[in-house]
């Protein structure tokens, strides 16, 4: 389902002279949510800026070919997620299996400006220990409050797989935080 703003963006972009205005509106709508989505995946603030630039430029390059088979929001999130994961792979930050000592957790401890024992900090460390697919699913569901159908459009996965991923992610996070709180 498209929102009024998305319709306005499409109208402006369809009119050849309004492409920059349409893109500016798109940025106003998505710059903050995408910043945080990418930040949760790549952790480092400086890297977020590079990934954001690349993601938005890719969005701009391909927006005239967007077929509207999915919502603009999930399409934008898909580009941003792929860009962020590519960045993580290049920096060897990706994790395929549960790893409490992943480089992402180390990066987070260096970047976070709070006591590492607060629940929010423990939650982040727990999320960053998760395998990549569980991490992306959990973030989109928990922080971006997307439906499973929307997450399926972003990650190109089945809803069943996503529900399993989310379930495992929740269990691991609970286990991680409970263990840290007890220590």
């Amino acid at each position, binding site marked *: 389902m498209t929102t009024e703003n998305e319709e306005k963006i499409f109208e402006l972009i369809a009119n050849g002279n309004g492409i920059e205005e349409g893109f500016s509106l798109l940025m106003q709508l998505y710059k903050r949510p995408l*910043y945080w989505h990418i930040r949760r995946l790549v952790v480092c603030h400086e890297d977020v800026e590079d990934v954001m630039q690349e993601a938005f430029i890719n969005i701009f390059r391909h927006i005239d070919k967007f077929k509207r088979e999915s919502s603009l929001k999930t399409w934008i999130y898909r580009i941003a997620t792929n860009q962020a994961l590519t960045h993580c792979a290049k920096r060897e930050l990706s994790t395929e299996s549960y790893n409490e000592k992943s480089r992402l957790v180390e990066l987070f401890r260096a970047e976070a400006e*709070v006591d590492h024992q607060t629940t929010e900090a423990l939650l982040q460390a727990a999320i960053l220990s998760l395998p990549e697919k569980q991490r992306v699913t959990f973030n989109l569901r928990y922080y971006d409050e997307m439906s499973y159908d929307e997450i399926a459009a972003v990650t190109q996965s089945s809803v069943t797989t996503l529900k399993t991923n989310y379930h495992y992610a929740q269990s691991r996070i609970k286990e991680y935080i409970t263990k840290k*709180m007890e220590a």
Partner: protein
Amino acid sequence: MKDFNFESITRKMPYKEPSEEYFNNLEHNILHEVKELQLPKRRSAKMHYIFMVSAVAASLLIGVFILFDNRLNTPSCAIESLVSHDLDESIDLYLEHLSDSDIQALAAETADQDIFYSILP
């Protein structure tokens, strides 16, 4: 064991919130990049337009040239001019073999006297 509940924690990220200025600068930089990307497209569109106008103008010129060339060399014109030339020659030949009295008789029957002007005695 202390039970952990997701609902008990906020969704606030444990990072410093970037300022409004940061987001504005980010937007400005990306829009600048996007405009830079648009420039070659615009140049290419302009070149495409110039090329199309030149092609149309050249086609028109060629069309006009072919039209005039054809008119000058149409078979009907060529035949007309040949027929007219041969006819003149055969009339001259015919008149050369006529006696003065025959020419005068012929001229008397013809409305256009001028054609006999040079040969009438």
